[in-house]
């Protein structure tokens, strides 16, 4: 009698695909500096997990956002709190900083080893786009706690594009959903943060990894 895996494997042929990924040889000169992209992806997994857990309690409305954040933090009078919520929020905040640092370091490594040279130009372009998306994640997430710092930082941040001639005012209104930062802005940033940016990022990350698999790691100099 075959073991359960070989029963599945004989039907779906999993091990062939598994071998193609796991048994491929690596070029010479792959050091620990080549793990930086992996660390960035790992932080993304931490952010996804903690983000989903936080979203069980967080309510993105002007009247509820601050209260639910205090509930998550355990800072509400009367002691009501989300179990372990403070740690989930702390991990989410610090993993976000860690991810920006890891993405930047990964870009620097790719730059120094000249790994974006032909034939890998397209993967560099996808990677730089992912860097921009990472920054957009940070910018949109900063408003969500809806405290003084978040509100006024977003007021300043969304006022910046309004200085662009002709289209600036329109961009600012598009970001804010009106002339001022309001509950509409909060909902827009929330939708950006949990739906639009993750969907685009997943697609681009799939492309990023798929291109690495097709082209191989560029290797040491």
């Amino acid at each position, binding site marked *: 009698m075959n073991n359960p895996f070989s029963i599945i494997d004989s039907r779906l042929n999993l091990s062939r695909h598994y071998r193609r990924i796991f048994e*491929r040889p690596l070029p010479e000169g792959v050091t620990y500096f080549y793990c930086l992209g992996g*660390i960035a992806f790992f932080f993304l997994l931490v952010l996804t997990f903690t983000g989903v857990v936080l979203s069980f309690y967080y309510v993105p409305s002007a009247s509820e956002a601050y209260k639910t954040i205090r509930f998550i933090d355990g800072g509400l009078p009367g002691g009501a709190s989300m179990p372990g919520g403070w740690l989930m929020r702390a991990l989410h905040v610090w993993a976000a*900083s860690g991810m920006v640092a890891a993405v*930047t370091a990964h870009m620097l490594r790719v730059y120094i080893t000249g790994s974006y040279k032909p034939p890998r130009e397209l993967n560099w372009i996808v990677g730089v786009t992912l860097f921009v998306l990472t920054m957009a994640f940070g910018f949109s997430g900063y408003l969500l706690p809806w405290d003084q710092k978040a509100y006024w930082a977003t007021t300043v941040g969304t006022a910046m594009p309004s200085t662009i001639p002709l289209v600036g005012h329109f961009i600012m209104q598009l970001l804010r959903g009106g002339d001022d930062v309001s509950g509409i802005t909060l909902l827009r940033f929330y939708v950006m943060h949990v739906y639009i940016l993750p969907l685009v990022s997943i697609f681009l990350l799939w492309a990023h990894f798929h291109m690495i698999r097709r082209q191989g790691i560029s290797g040491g100099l």
Partner: protein
Amino acid sequence: MDKNQKKFYPDYLFEILLVCLFALEGVLIISYIFPPVTGSPVDFSRNFLPRPEWYFLALYQMFKYFPGPLAFLGVAVIPAAILFLIFALPFLEKTHSRRLRDRKFSALVAAVLLVSAVVLTVLSYF
């Protein structure tokens, strides 16, 4: 096949999982010691001078050097130009050599950008 040749499994995967474990321990320790502080509730009448996250400080500092009608230079034109330069990197470098010493001009530009970002970030604290 060369016996010293690394394979994705187990060599590379092990290295990645090891550094990920360190990364997880790092954020766990920092999160435990420095949990984020939630500020006071939004007060629309009390204008408050905010500071963005550390990775936006360079941009925020540059904004200060372009007052009035020139503001869009610091906010949009310069950042967009730098971003475009970064996107276009593989097409701008003429040499096919990957060594930094064969790409001196590119390395100089990269160093100037990197140092500017660090200097602007530091200046934003004063």
